[in-house]
């Protein structure tokens, strides 16, 4: 990461990224969310530019198509025409332009905008779209590796991905990602894209007391940094299996067979649907390829977890603490 002449720049998985005229807090957010210098990825010709402008760009978006994007806790309404997407109004907003060789994001009224979470979500969507346009695919999954086995645990928010990942770590697996990784579709290499495992305090106390006392996050969860879990950096691994997580109270924890159709549906939920049609085709190809991996459903019930069988064919011993 470098800052020269007011330009913050660092590669995002090999894609050159440069941000101009960004205020300090935004620069901090960009570094925290997007700067993972440990990954040795060849430099890409696809560049991503971000600039904070003083006013909205010219060219009103009248008559543009509207498209809702669902992000955690809210829905963002973008407008689009061709390869340009906008959100916001004259006072504050964001414009994303996707090109064949690069993407440009323009922000205006950034510091004056009232809802900080909404504008960060919008910028996150825009940067994700830029990375998608460069050929990568996001995968919301917990990922763990052991030997040649690399499992992506797919499931809705709150279903138990983080807890399952911690159980896997206790059973000797190496954490790659808790909730998000970026995928190279050609190789299925998954790059972990988070800073640690977030877990409710009561879950830590019950199953992983040795990890209790971790750094608390604003939402009440504790963030357990990967180095506390023995994870080496960089956290990259090539996916070999899928586990579709489900939670059924009152039942036993168990493995079930799934169909390729089940995998496809879970994968689309995990990748999300891109804004740009070209990126949709890239994602569809990735989903098709991923759906050919061995897959099983892991139903979290009331009985103790057991990671054996469908995941690795081994008799894992899951240890508490």
């Amino acid at each position: 990461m470098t800052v020269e002449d007011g330009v913050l720049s660092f590669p995002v998985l090999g894609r050159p990224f440069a941000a101009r005229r960004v205020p300090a807090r935004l620069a901090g957010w960009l570094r925290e969310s997007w700067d993972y210098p440990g990954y040795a990825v060849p430099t890409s010709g696809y560049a991503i530019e971000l600039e904070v402008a003083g006013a909205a760009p010219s060219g009103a978006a009248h008559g543009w198509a509207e498209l809702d994007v669902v992000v955690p806790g809210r829905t963002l309404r973008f407008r689009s025409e061709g390869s340009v997407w906008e959100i916001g109004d004259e006072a504050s907003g964001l414009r994303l332009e996707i090109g064949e060789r690069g993407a440009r994001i323009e922000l205006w009224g950034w510091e004056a905008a009232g809802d900080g979470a909404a504008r960060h979500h919008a910028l996150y969507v825009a940067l994700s779209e830029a990375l998608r346009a460069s050929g990568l695919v996001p995968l919301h999954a917990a990922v763990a590796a052991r030997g040649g086995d690399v499992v992506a645990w797919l499931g809705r928010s709150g279903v138990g991905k983080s807890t399952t990942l911690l159980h896997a770590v206790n059973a000797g697996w190496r954490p790659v990602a808790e909730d998000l990784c970026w995928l190279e579709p050609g190789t299925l290499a998954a790059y972990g894209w988070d800073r640690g495992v977030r877990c409710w305090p009561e879950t830590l106390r019950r199953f992983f007391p040795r990890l209790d006392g971790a750094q608390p996050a604003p939402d009440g969860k504790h963030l357990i940094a990967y180095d506390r879990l023995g994870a080496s950096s960089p956290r990259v691994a090539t996916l070999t299996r899928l586990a579709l997580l489900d939670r059924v109270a009152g039942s036993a924890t168990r493995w079930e067979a799934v169909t390729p159709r089940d995998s496809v549906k879970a994968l689309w939920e995990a990748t999300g649907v891109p804004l740009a049609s070209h990126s949709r085709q890239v994602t569809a190809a990735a989903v098709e390829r991923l759906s050919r991996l061995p897959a099983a459903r892991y139903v979290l019930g009331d009985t103790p977890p057991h990671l054996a069988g469908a995941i690795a064919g081994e008799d894992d011993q899951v240890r508490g603490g």
Partner: protein
Amino acid sequence: MSPMADTTRFRAKPGIVETDLETEVVLLDPATREMFSLNATGRVVWRALPGRTVADLAAEVTRAFDVGYDRALEDVRRIVGELLAAGVIVPDDHDG
């Protein structure tokens, strides 16, 4: 829904994304995030859809599977009806 004529042509709704599993197809409508699965017969119908009438599609099904025309036509009408109801295809107003 009114009965469809066997001379009616259909086309995919623009933007529909498909995932081909070789024996079946999963369709995704990006606008609604709804997904729709087609079995092997439905996959043949989906693949053959552009520019073909319902009757043409039934003939295509008889070539792909060991099934008579009347049974194939019945299957195609049902599949097209389901695709229409799911909003992933629309009638093609263009001739030919």
